[in-house]
């Protein structure tokens, strides 16, 4: 066997160096082209929305009842479902971030499930649970309570699909809080509840708010589970995505106007999440 397997002759290194330089020089335009093409692919459709409608037509369709109903219903239901997610999700995220218990992995998996579950599956699952003849719904029906195809169903569908976005972010933010502050607070006389309210939650605040914003955005865009579980009734269950789908078949201007509003909200969401997470550092 050759006793000097790593021959380091000057020519070899020079040639390799040259090769690397050449391929790097060739790569840069290629990567730039890929990036440019992809950015164009993302921005072109969004820009097309704005190009397809005149400002006058946009303002005119904003006055249409179908647009106004969808806008107000969407904002109200997304706000309510975000509040529900925060109320239920914050303690859950805090417990899972700070305590190890049997079955924590199962709880984590279950709370993450809606992220990977197709919305259509979520819709039919909710219907099977809370529909008139559903597992829970049939008992509620005895008391004259029906959930499916009401505004409550819209909110439940949104909570179902949007909750993981908040809970995941909240848990990560709680884990990022140094336990030392909590220990110090306890030696100063703070009960576990006081520690959570005055130390852990304030220190995780930026992450919690950005998680809530993401969850709100997901609730606002919810379509599949809503149309299956809540139906598509204007003023009651027809949220903005459903209204876009409905008006697209007749009044394209209304559909585009709604879409533009959602684009604006989406930009606001991204910007505010960026600002919130940057401030945390």
């Amino acid at each position: 066997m050759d006793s000097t397997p790593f021959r380091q002759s000057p020519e070899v290194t020079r040639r390799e160096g040259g090769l690397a330089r050449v391929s790097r020089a060739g790569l840069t335009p290629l990567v730039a082209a890929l990036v440019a093409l992809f950015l164009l692919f993302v921005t072109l459709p969004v820009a097309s929305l704005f190009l397809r409608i005149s400002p006058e037509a946009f303002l005119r369709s904003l006055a249409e009842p179908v647009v106004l109903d969808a806008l107000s219903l969407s904002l109200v239901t997304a706000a309510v479902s975000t509040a529900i997610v925060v109320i239920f999700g914050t303690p859950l995220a805090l417990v899972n971030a700070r305590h190890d218990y049997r079955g924590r992995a199962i709880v984590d998996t279950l709370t993450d499930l809606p992220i990977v579950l197709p919305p259509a599956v979520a819709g039919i699952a909710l219907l099977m649970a809370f529909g008139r003849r559903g597992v829970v719904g049939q008992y509620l029906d005895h008391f004259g309570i029906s959930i499916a195809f009401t505004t409550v169903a819209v909110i439940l569908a949104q909570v179902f699909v949007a909750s993981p976005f908040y809970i995941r972010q909240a848990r990560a933010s709680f884990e990022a809080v140094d336990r030392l502050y909590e220990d110090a607070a306890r030696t100063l006389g703070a009960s576990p509840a006081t520690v959570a309210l005055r130390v852990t939650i304030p220190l995780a605040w930026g992450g919690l708010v950005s998680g809530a914003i993401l969850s709100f955005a997901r609730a606002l865009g919810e379509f599949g589970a809503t149309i299956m579980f809540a139906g598509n009734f204007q003023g009651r269950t027809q949220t903005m995505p459903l209204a876009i789908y409905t008006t697209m078949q007749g009044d394209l201007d209304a559909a585009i106007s709604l879409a533009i509003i959602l684009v604006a909200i989406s930009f606001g969401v991204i910007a505010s999440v960026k600002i919130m997470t940057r401030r945390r550092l």
Partner: protein
Amino acid sequence: MLSVRAVRHLRDFTLDVTLSVRQGETLVLIGENGAGKSTVLNLISGILTPDAGEIALGERTLYSSEERIDVPAESRKIGHLFQSYALFPHMTVFENVAFGLRCRKVPRPEIASSVANQLAAMNLADLSDVNVGRLSGGQRQRVALARALVLDPDILLLDEPLAAVDMRAQGAMRKELHDRIRNAGIPCIVVTHNLGDALELGNRICLIEEGRVVADGAPEEVLSMRDNGFIASFAGPGPHNGLMPRAPITGHCGGPPDSWPL
């Protein structure tokens, strides 16, 4: 008077210590990093729970495995200063010091006056509204001390109190800390791996190795244990090594104690 007998199984060894601190006494726990010194403080203040043993502070039993007593950390009335001071970064100096009083539901005007007095005593009055992120190491230490002392604790635990203060200021800070501990007039446990700190601050020194107390006595006694590897690492072989029981304390003296890696 604090008496501790505590056993706790750690990852690398079993911590098994018995020690006591008399009224007005300052006990120094010294030993190498990872010897279990900070764990002892955490067991006393209730952040960690022993696997067995008994901890009593005056008349109060804080922990007893036999009697199944475990007073939660928030009810122990123990001042615990952490190595990095753990000042709440989202609060001002005032809010940090007021934190414990608010937890005790002390009336607002009383909080304002207690905190103001404590800050004045610590030369921190000007910094009351400053966010703690903008303080120097020495100022942070004083805020942490004020935050603990304003609650009138029965004992003070200091974990490496000078480690986060920059080298040049350490001599002066040590002197200041010494005075403040004496003035507070409460028993105190100081954890350090710096023999200079131990000699300046302690009435009594406990040497801890791998979770066990291997020496317990007056500073001079512990210092004379030349056969111990940890002591010898400061002292060197000869008797005239520049390490006197009362090492020079003003400024950075450059002797073996200060050269011990932080």
